[in-house]
């Protein structure tokens, strides 16, 4: 797994590339929790190049979503592949996570 960052004004965009499984999820978890701890209040996680996610990856997003809420910030996930979206759906995550189709829509969502 690889993570790249892009900053657009007050929005930070994280691109997660590759696989989010039991061995790689901890890296992402550390990254996001670190950003929240550093008061990053607007976060987009771009997943167009995420090929795979397991429950370990889901845990990261669940934990991140909780922390972000506590911190009064907002996290939006976008551009999920069907196979990844399917896992979110099955786990019931699609209902409480902010999911958008593209980075632009995600940024728009953040300013709502």
């Amino acid at each position, binding site marked *: 797994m690889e993570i790249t960052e892009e900053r657009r004004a007050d929005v930070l965009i994280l691109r997660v590339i590759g696989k989010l*499984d*039991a*061995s790689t999820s901890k890296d992402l978890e550390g990254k996001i929790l670190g950003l929240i701890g550093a008061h990053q209040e607007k976060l987009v996680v771009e997943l167009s190049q995420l090929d*795979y996610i*397991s*429950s*370990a990856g*889901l*845990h990261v997003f*669940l*934990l991140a*979503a*909780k922390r972000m*809420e506590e911190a009064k910030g907002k996290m939006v996930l976008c551009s999920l592949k*069907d*196979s990844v979206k399917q*896992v979110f759906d*099955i*786990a*019931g995550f699609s*209902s*409480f996570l902010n999911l958008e189709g593209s980075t632009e829509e995600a940024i728009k969502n953040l300013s709502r």
Partner: protein
Amino acid sequence: MAFNDSQRQARNLNALLRVSKALATEIRLDDLLRVIVEEAAEVLDADRATLFLYDESRNELWSKTTQRLEIKEIRVQLGVGIAGIVAKTRTPINISDAYADGRFNPNFDKETGYRTRSILCMPLIGNGDRLIGVIEVLNKKYQEVFDKADESLLGGLSAHITVALERARLIQAYVEKERMEEALKLAHEIQMSMVPKIFPPFPDRSELDIFATLVPAKEVGGDLYDFFFIDDNHLCFAVGDASGKGVPASLFMAVTKTLFKAIAGNGGSPDAILARLNTDICRDNESCMFVTAFCGVLDVRTGRVEYSNAGHNLPYVVSDGILAALPTVGGMALGVSESARFRVGQLRLKPGDQLVLYTDGVTEAMDKNDQLFAEGRLEITLQAMNGRSSKEVVEGVVKAVQRFSTGAPQSDDITLLVLGYMGSRKNDQHTLFVQVRNDPSELQRVNRTVTEFAKKHGLASELVYRVKLVLEEIITNIISYGYEDISEHEISVRLSWKDPRIEIEIKDDGRPFNPLEAPQPDIGKPLVERQIGGLGIHLVRKMMDDLEYRRESDRNCLVLKTKVRET
């Protein structure tokens, strides 16, 4: 001591009563005969009494019970000697001096050293004027001769004896019939316990369509059939017909079948199997029983059949709707001659071909006019069933035979074995085995191996995704929570892929854990109430169609099944 007339009458009456009571309670023929002889001698003050029974089949009298002598059988021709003449003329004889009477046969006296003086002999005539036997009392005590009173006393006694004997015979006939039925039941049980009866016998062998039946005759005929794999690729099959009927036939059949399995199980060609079986049966075959048998070995990869025969009806091969008996290879029935030779024949079955093995109970079934079912009718029936499954063919032939012989008793066992060759197994199932240590880094190796396997066999990507996810969830769970120690453990994974289905089996020696019983996360809850954990098993359940868990001695065994899903 002598009695006066009235004393004697009273005594005789009492004796009659006593005897008739004794006769009424004794139902076993042997015991009854003894009681009759003892009581007759006693009542008539005779030195000895003999009861002769009539043997209708040989037109002779016979006696087994003689008083105060060892038991032996005496046979007397009708019309010879006093007893023989009484039986023939059905008239009593009362003589005072045996040796002065030309009809007396002194041979028995000579043999036994006994001295016969007076004789009173009466016929026993039963229902329908049937001769039952004669009763004879010898040597009146206290006086020289048997008088009129003795005649009427023995006459009265004879009536009771006759009734008792007839009754005992009826009972004995009934008991014997019961015993016979018991024996036949036993014979059936022995026979039917020896043949395979579960169909399909090899559910995972797509190369074969086998069905067989054995309809035993009331008097078991000793038929047998069998089939089993000698190794992965060779099916051995046989039918046979042991000589004889009833329990002996069923036992002989059972012995033959057991030997056959033991010999054929070692492999070898059918002629060698029959030769060895023949040697074993000939040895110690004191009862001179024999068995006809046909034996074949099919290579399920190629359809090639080798066969050999021992005096049995040659099977038919049905190919493209054309019926033909297999070419003869000679061979005499097993158990006849130790020097018998067996030859081997060959043929090749194409996919869809059937071999029809049978016993003569099929072709020799008779209708009520004693017409045989014969090969002709069997062939017509088989032609008509062309293209049907083995089960349908077997059941069709049995039905045809039974319809043909309606109203006539089934005289012999009816056995049919149909072996359909469905073509060699398509190599369309692929299996992957992976051994995994309880180390999280192993997951990458599993992932790589599955990727390669999927690529090689063209698995759809959505399926590969689900398989990988399921393996990760389950193996992670086992590694994280399965072990109470810190030692190294092995987790074994098997994938079986047969388009469009895949089966995943995961075994571990960790603590018992049934994921099917794990609590389900409430996925409808809002974020703040969502618990972290329990998601993995939930995903597995949703990603797979079927989950089975069992604890195998000290291992968890989880089997997951799914198939390609429409995307």
